[in-house]
Each structure stands twice: as C-alpha cells, then as structure tokens.
C-alpha cells in the first residue's frame, strides 16, 4: 500500500540493546520534555478566578430587551421561534389592556416567553430574526446544574432590569459598576 505521508515509519523490530532495556535513557528524554515546559508560557488560565475577555461576537445566554422607557420590546411575533433550529423557544401572546402602556411597547406582547436552555445551541438565529430588537445573546455562560428543572428560562430570568426603576441593577448587569 502506498504511504499516505512521507513521515510514516515502519515499525522497528530489532531486539533492544542493554542500554535500551534498562529504559533510563528514555525516561530521561521524557523528563527533559516535561522540565522544558516549566519555563514555557502557560496556555491555560485558572478559570473561576481569572476570566478571559469575550469576543465581541460571543453568543451566550439570552436577554429580553426593554426600550429606554422600560417597556418590553417583544411583541410575540414568533419569528425567533420559527427561526430556532433547535425549537427551544415557546411563547404565548396577550393583548395589552388600557393601563399597561408603560409595561409593553406594542398592543401585543409576550405574556409567557420561555427558552429551553437544554435545547438551545446558541446559534444566534433568534437574535437575527427579531424585528423588534427584543432578544439578544449576552456574554454569559449557561450555568451547569445536576437536574434539568432549572433550565427552562422564563421571562423573569430573561428580561433585563428596567432602566427607569432598576437603573443600578442594569448598570451592574452591564458590568459598569
């Protein structure tokens, strides 16, 4: 058979010499590589204490956006759910009644909005599909857990703090404090 690369070596089946049979030489060669790595730059970081900066296009957990007046931008149009390749997003819409104009931006809003983080593949297609600038992928990881129960994120988990009433929380979430 023709060799795939010119680096292929045939197996050497000669009997070992005395020096090779006590293995010391090979152990020394291996340790030399190990010691050389002590002086090299570490490629890893100590994760929880140290953190790497995120790339500007990092796609982490979702947030549901509000406008400047603190009203929810989502109108439950369903485009994120239809764009989602993992079918992770579900929602239920409701009509805004008089008196709720300060809560919701448009006459229709998402009364329930859920993302199943177990299904989500963080592709960001929901963000791309959204016509109302309502959903964004943030720079946060999905936390690990032992059970499946905590992974369905509802509106309380996803909505950003209200910039009017919870300005401090919002600044903290943005990392400005």
């Amino acid at each position, binding site marked *: 058979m023709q060799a795939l690369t010119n680096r292929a070596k045939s197996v050497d089946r000669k009997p070992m010499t005395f020096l090779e049979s006590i293995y010391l030489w090979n152990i020394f060669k291996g340790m030399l590589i190990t010691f050389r790595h002590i002086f090299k730059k570490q490629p890893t970081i100590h994760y929880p204490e140290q953190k790497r900066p995120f790339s500007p296009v990092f796609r982490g957990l979702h947030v549901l956006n509000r406008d400047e007046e603190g009203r929810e931008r989502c*109108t439950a149009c369903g485009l994120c759910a*239809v764009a989602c390749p993992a079918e992770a997003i579900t*929602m239920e*819409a*409701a*009509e805004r009644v008089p008196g709720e104009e300060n809560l919701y931006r*448009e006459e229709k809003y998402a009364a*329930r909005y*859920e993302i199943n983080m177990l299904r989500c593949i963080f592709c960001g297609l929901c963000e791309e599909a959204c016509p109302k600038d309502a959903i964004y992928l943030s720079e946060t990881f999905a936390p690990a857990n032992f059970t499946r129960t905590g992974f369905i994120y509802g509106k309380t988990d996803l909505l950003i703090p209200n910039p009017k009433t919870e300005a401090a929380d919002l600044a903290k979430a943005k990392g400005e404090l």
Partner: protein
Amino acid sequence: MSEQPLFKVTIDNITIEVPAGTTILQAARKIGGEVAPPAMCYYSKLQGSGGKCRTCLVEVSKGSEKDPRPMPKLVASCRTTVMDGMEVKNITSPKVQDARAGVVEFLLLNHPLDCPICDQAGECHLQDLSYEHGKEGTRFEFQKRTFHKVDLGDKIQLHMTRCILCYRCVFTADQLTKEREHGVLDRGDHAQIATFIQKNLQNDFIGNVIDVCPVGALTDKTFRFKNRVWFTKPVDAHRNCSNPDCCGEVQLWMRGDEVFRVTARKDEWGEIKEASNGKTGWICNECRFEKKDVKDWVIEGPTKVNRHSVISQGHYVGVTKPNETFSAVMKGRDPKLLMDIHSVSEVNKPNIELSLLDRPAHSTDFNQS
C-alpha cells in the same frame, strides 16, 4: 355552451385555449404557476370584484389575430377578456415587473408594516406580493395615514390602517348576506371601510369577510393574538351545520387538541374553495366563531400546504412516532423519574385554555392561579 368558440391565447409563450369571455387572469390561472399574475382585489367568487388594485397588470403585445397591434398601455388582467390569438406577457415583460413594483410601493405607502403584531402574517397576500415584487425601502417621507382600530361586531376586528381598499368585503356582504351594513365611507385618502356609526355587523355569513380580506384589515377576534399562523396546524374537517346555506366544510387551525381558529378552505390562489355540493364553500358565523371544540367536528385529515409556505414549517409529513423503548428494555417497568413539562414550564398551562376565549388573552388570564 359547447358551441362557444375557443380562443387561443398565449401567455408568457405558453398557449392555451379558453372559451370566449374568459379574462386574461383566469386564462393564466388555468396554466397555473408563476404565469398567473397576483391579484389583491379580484376574487373569482365575488361578482364585480377586480380592477382596483392594479397588481395584476400585464402587457398585451398582440391584441388578437385580426388586429395584431399591441395594447398601448398595461392592462388589468382581471378585467380584460381574451381575444383569439392574443399574446400576453407577464413575467417575461420587464415593464410589467417594474409597474408591479410601483404598485406595491403605492399599496405600502400607508401600510403600517406591523406584521409582527398582525394575525394575518404568514398568509397575507400583501406580504407575499411585497416579498415577490416590492422594493426594499420607501421613498415616502410623510406621516402615514392612521385610523383607530374598530370592532365590527364582537367577533370581527377592523384595522383600517392595514386596509388596501380592495372592496372584497363589501362585495361579500352585498352578495352573501341579506343586508349590507358596511361600506366605504369618504373619498380619496380618507376612504375607509366602516359601518355607519359603528353599527354591529350581525349577519349570519359576515364572518366570511375575514377570509376574503387579502390583508390583515379584517381579522377574527376569537383568534386575535392567540397564536401565530405557522405554529398552528391546518386540518380539514366538517360538521352538519343547521344553516342550509353553510357547507360546514372548514379548515381547523389546531395546536395539539385545541382548535384555535376555523376558516373556510382555500385554494392555491387564496380564494375560498368550492365545497362538495358544488357551491362556493362559504361558512356561517356559528361554524366559524362558536365551534372551538374538536368534538364538534369530524376531522378528515391534515390540509396539504405548499411546502414553500411558512405554514408548512415544523409540520413533518409521513412521520412514524417511535415506540417508547424504556418499558420494553426494562421488562415492563415504567421510568421512575419522569419530568412533567408543566411543572417547569409556564407555557400552555393545562388550566388555561386560550383557544376557548372568544377575545384576545389579557394579563388577567395568565395571572389567575
């Protein structure tokens, strides 16, 4: 009828023979496919409709065999009858494509473009038209014309801002119901579909105006904001309706076992199909608005949806559901740990039946325990 002469007409280099008196649009629909010009106001089941929206404009490059001069201007194909030897250009004519883009721009001048809210989105002819023929962006720099939304009776919602004044609903009410109570008031830019002094529309067949409306101007209040069209699954069903004029053959828009909406069956041109008794399949208000229980209906099977339609998304055809393997593997024992989705999810709570509400859901419906 048989001695009626057949006219040979060529549309986009496809020749077809049609009886005299057929319109170009009908002849093109006989050929089918992309050759058929889009129509926003013309409705073959309504007498007198057509000629208003100008989306069906075509170029007649040869008038007839006897008089082969081309027609000087683009003509509305829904109102122009064919002549023998006529040659028509629709998709092959750049003039037509350009004119259609202009028509779409005009139709969208005052359109609010609120498709994310609109219940018609996904089955809206204006959406299709602007997607196919429209230009990106608008040159309109003024305030859009606005109206307040109006309830036409307790089951029909009128969004006058979305209306393109096709008059289909007026013809429907005229020809289907005993007395027409709504029409077009005012003129020009102020023209609007209205009932006189907000009078209720209570006729038995008035719900059909929702089906004929090409845009989201007239929508079903019992379906309002309940679900998006493409998340519901269309199913053909029928019932024995007590109303003699109602065919009882409908399309149910279901999700699971819930019937979210009932509409008449539509053909590939978006018009109401003929029922099995040979008449147009108009349905009565009782079938449309009040029978939201799956037990009221005899289900015939899923509706065939064009695979290019957004409605067909997520509707997997010919799927065989795999058997539960767990108990087979574990010698009949059921799994000990099963997560009930309702214990972790707030969506689709079993105690909240949104489909049975005859109005849009409000925050109070979700906040009840």
